[in-house]
């Protein structure tokens, strides 16, 4: 029981470090146990160092940086126990263009094991998709679904 938790922790921790570097283009990150001698009750905390910056209390990170760390952590856990499908609703909202690109590229590495359904307003994320569904609402307050081709003018869906 304690051993299984420790093993999972080790694996997720290693993944987290690697995923972080991929998404941030550098720097380093790790998870640590708040009470290493008490595997059944210990909490799990984070150490994060974006490229060029100092190891810093992750609360001081920017909105975009926190979103990216969140994605790194979720994907780190997915690598240990892949979810068959995953729905992400605008997780890229706070990311700048460069980070959206990295995020979109990285999600592609997981699509073999996990089916992704991603709600987004961002062009970079749309370009990584295998298909697009457009949702519109006419004046009648009812949602309609529209198939959108990847070659369509995506500008109307991008914000």
């Amino acid at each position: 029981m304690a051993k299984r938790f420790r093993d999972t922790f080790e694996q997720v921790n290693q993944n987290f470090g690697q995923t972080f570097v991929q998404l941030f283009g550098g720097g380093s990150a790790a998870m640590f146990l708040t009470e290493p001698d008490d595997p059944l009750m210990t909490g799990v905390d984070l150490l994060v160092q974006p490229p060029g910056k100092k190891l810093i209390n992750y609360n001081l990170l920017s909105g975009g940086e926190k979103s990216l760390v969140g994605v790194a952590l979720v994907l780190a856990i997915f690598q240990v126990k892949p979810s068959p499908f995953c729905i992400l609703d605008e997780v890229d909202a706070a990311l700048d263009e460069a980070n959206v690109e990295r995020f979109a590229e990285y999600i592609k590495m997981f699509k073999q094991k996990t089916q992704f359904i991603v709600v987004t307003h961002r062009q970079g994320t749309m370009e990584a998709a295998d298909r697009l569904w457009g949702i519109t609402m006419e004046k009648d307050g009812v949602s309609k679904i529209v198939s959108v081709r990847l070659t369509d003018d995506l500008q109307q869906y991008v914000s």
Partner: protein
Amino acid sequence: MYLKSIELSGFKSFTNRTVIKLEDGISCIVGPNGSGKSNIADAVRWVLGEQSAKILRGHKMEDIIFAGSDKRKPLGMAEVILNIDNSDGSLPLEYSAVAVCRRAYRDGESEYLLNGRQCRLADIRELFMDSGVSNNSLALIGQGRIQEVVNMKADERRLLLEDAA
């Protein structure tokens, strides 16, 4: 397993039966503010057994039934169906195609069906238990919620690892 389609009728801003066909890989859902994108994510959460009206952005469970609009009358029932390809047998059912259905009526009645047969909410939850998919797993990350795994306390974060262990 993977989702082959999501069918919505009377759920939030979806009136007539709307079918969202999905396949493996990455499917993106796009559109203007308030068009219904997050409502689709809510529908999946709901059919997997979400019981908190608050998490579904409502006051009471009745709020998820189409409430009408300028031009349309309210509906009396909401229904969501997940059609799942189970050829890899990852869901513990003898079928290669699994349809999970939930219905809700204005009087508060709820129905759950697995491949057309009535069942209980507990049966649906149990079905997905080992797959890691549930209404409160990392498989469903709601709008504005991605920073939560960073902001949460250390003991809450521990639970995420326990689920994966």
